[in-house]
């Protein structure tokens, strides 16, 4: 049985070039990057080259990149490192944080933890298409606000958040702004100065790098308290011997992602996604969570457009459209009358890997907090499936999905205790 993988927002396969780049650092080039001798110098050089590659992907300086064990650690370092910053030895101390209801749990649960330690947290809502209103962020500001943390693109819907506007608001209010760009990097153009963020999270395995490594961009001058204590690694911002093979892999993946975006890989990806989504929408009683399929609504970048930037081919098209934007690889679709959990299992048994919601610790699926935050009923949230494409996906993969999904949805509906048939449903709202 062939297997088709359309769950690239969960993780992506390591590209062959990335694996090749990493390979020597498992054995022959094994030195500790902190060592004085030539073994150490060799790996130190590799780590610093990777740092430059990561910085280049987001328009930052190499010295502003801190390597971590992944996106979750980077998010935690940002939230606790800034908002949990010890003031007179008291953590929290009434500091205020603004975040959103659709953040990844790495941010949400870090904020909840600080809440339990005396911080105040505002969770700004999203609209029905899953987008934060920057004015809600502005209204939530207090004199005690220390951090704003709003993700760049949502993992479940792919909806791009107005981080450029939020960056301006943060700048005006002189509040630190962190954005989790794990689902944006490599899919759309990311420039820290256009976003105006002080902290930005990256994860290697979401952009065809290895699992277990990520990075936090920390704008020069940002007061950040280390959360991991030990040696003076990463300029004393993250102690622990560097994961050299992982970091090299992240660097290689960042290089490839940057080159891919310059080549227009994102447009190809969007075309595949739009083909998939367009055909799936022919199934009765289904629809897109977020914005509907339309190439002009696919994001290529975020932030304040810089007219001088000649590389921004798409910016003119996007400016003033007022449309919410979505990353080019994600399609979140609900099917009335089915249980998304059963659909994911049935599709997996047929060789198609997709996902729904977020898995809890047992591996069972809980109704997605993101879809619920968009005002959906639990029933619709449970009937939703996420398709997410990656660089390895071909047109054949999309055709395979289009061959198995409609028949599987039909089978599930046939046996569903809640499916009443399309006749009893209201006409599908234009999305």
């Amino acid at each position, binding site marked *: 049985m062939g297997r088709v993988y359309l769950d690239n927002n969960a993780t992506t396969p390591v590209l062959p070039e990335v694996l090749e780049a990493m390979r020597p650092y498992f054995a022959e080039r094994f030195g500790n990057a902190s060592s004085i001798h030539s073994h150490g110098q060799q790996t130190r050089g590799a780590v610093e080259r990777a740092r430059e590659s990561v910085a280049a992907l987001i328009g930052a300086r190499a010295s502003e990149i801190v390597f971590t064990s992944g996106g979750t650690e980077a998010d935690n370092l940002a939230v606790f490192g800034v908002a949990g910053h010890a003031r007179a030895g008291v953590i929290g101390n009434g500091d205020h944080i603004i975040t959103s209801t659709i953040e990844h749990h790495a941010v949400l649960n870090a904020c909840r933890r600080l809440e339990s330690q005396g911080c105040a947290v505002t969770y700004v809502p999203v609209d029905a298409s899953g987008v934060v209103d920057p004015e809600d962020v502005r209204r939530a500001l207090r004199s005690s606000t220390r951090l704003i943390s709003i993700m760049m693109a949502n993992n479940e819907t792919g909806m791009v958040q107005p981080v450029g506007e939020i960056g301006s608001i943060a700048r005006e209010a002189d509040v630190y702004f962190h954005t989790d760009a794990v689902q944006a990097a490599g899919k759309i153009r990311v420039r820290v100065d256009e976003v105006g963020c002080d902290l930005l999270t990256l994860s290697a395995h979401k952009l065809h790098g290895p699992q277990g490594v990520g990075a936090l961009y920390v704008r020069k001058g940002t007061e950040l308290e280390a959360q991991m204590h030990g040696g003076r690694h990463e300029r004393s911002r993250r102690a622990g011997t560097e994961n050299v093979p992982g970091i090299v892999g992240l660097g290689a993946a960042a290089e490839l992602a940057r080159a891919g975006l310059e080549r227009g890989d994102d447009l190809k990806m969007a075309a595949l996604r739009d083909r998939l989504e367009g055909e799936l929408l022919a199934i009765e009683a289904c629809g897109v969570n977020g914005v509907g399929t339309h190439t002009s609504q696919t994001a290529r970048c975020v932030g304040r457009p810089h007219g001088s930037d000649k590389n921004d081919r798409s910016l003119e098209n996007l400016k003033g459209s007022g449309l919410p934007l979505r990353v080019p690889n994600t399609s979140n679709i609900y099917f009335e009358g089915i249980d998304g*959990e059963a659909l994911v299992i049935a599709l997996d048994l047929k060789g198609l890997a997709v996902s729904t919601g977020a898995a809890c610790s047992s591996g*069972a699926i809980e109704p997605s907090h993101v879809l619920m935050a968009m005002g959906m009923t639990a029933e619709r949230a449970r009937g939703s499936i996420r398709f997410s494409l990656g660089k390895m996906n071909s047109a054949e993969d999309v055709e395979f999905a289009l061959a198995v999904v409609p028949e599987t949805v039909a089978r599930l509906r046939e046996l569903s205790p809640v499916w009443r048939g399309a006749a009893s449903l209201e006409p599908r709202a234009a999305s």
Partner: protein
Amino acid sequence: MLGSFDSAGLASLRMTVWFLGDGALVSETIAVAMSGGVDSSTVAAMLRAEGHNVIGLTMQLWNQRRLAGHEGMPESVNHPSKPKAGSLGAPTTGRCCSLDDVYDARRVAETIGIPYYVVNHEERFEREVVRPFVEEYLAGRTPIPCSLCNNHLKFDQLLIVARQIGAERIATGHYAQVAFDDAGGRWLLKRPVDRSKDQTYFLFGLTQEQLARTLFPLGGMTKPEVRELARTYNLVIAEKPDSQEICFVPGGDYKKFLDAYLAEQGAEARLDVGGEMVTTDGAVIGEHAGVHNFTVGQRKGLGVATGSPLYVIQINNDTRQVVVGRDEELYTRTLRARRVNLISVAAIDGPMRVGVKIRHKHAPAAAVIESAGPDEVVVTFDEAQRAVTPGQAAVFYDGDVVVGGGWIE
């Protein structure tokens, strides 16, 4: 439910029933309800070894951490609490859906090489099992959540999911047997070979459609044989202790569970269920804090001191009275069962001689059952039975065959 009842369709299912050992095996896709215990793990391994396409499914039914910290509930349930003196170190906390069990089931699935999934039915479990469990106690009855779970979750929702993902049948680790009766044209539920593990009492609610789609591969084996087989298959759980208690009630203390659940649901959900304790003569001899603290036949914890031992004879939900009396007053000859499900027969026409179990650990007692309404049956025992308990099930047996059963009024 599972679509319209179609006897022709059920008969055709029978044609694909596997044939054990005679070489005519039909390979089919079967979903195994895996709990992480020895029985269901062995079932999965057996079916896999026989060449079937096996899919492992575990139902996530209850979040064990949900009530943690509420009024006497353990703070942590993933670690067994301190073993009681004299115990063999068996887990004393509730084990339902514990991460350890899911881990075990997943390891077994990996060992035997089958796909494995956890499906979330927490919401339905709370609606169909936990709330009725709480309400029954508050109404002075003594519920059996396992039967509700079988009727509403395992053989209903899980079977739907199984069929949706391509398995026309489910197999479980229950000790029971299913057979098709050619003469009567009905699916039968029968007691297992290992009588000490007989679980048919909890399965009386199964419909013909459900039975047609269910396999109980352990029905012909004894527990020691199952353990031996688990060892043969090198299953990591081969030596895991059996679980006995109600899965979502940590340590088996249902009163603490009720208190914690009601506290979590908010004060308005806490009903005033206290009242008088009276003797069978009507004399008030004390007060009690709630009818849910009592079960018919209970002797300990009545909170009244008298010369001779007293037992709970009856719980009167309308007046909140707990009636106590002497042991001999506990015996009754008749009971009425409601919401009856019939298995081996389509209807009870006239008096029928059967054996009746009124609790799980009870030898079937000789009785006559008679229809008393659309789904009601009156049971008349040959000899009066002790402590007939409202909320428990009365299950009717014709030898090894389960005739049907209902809920004691």
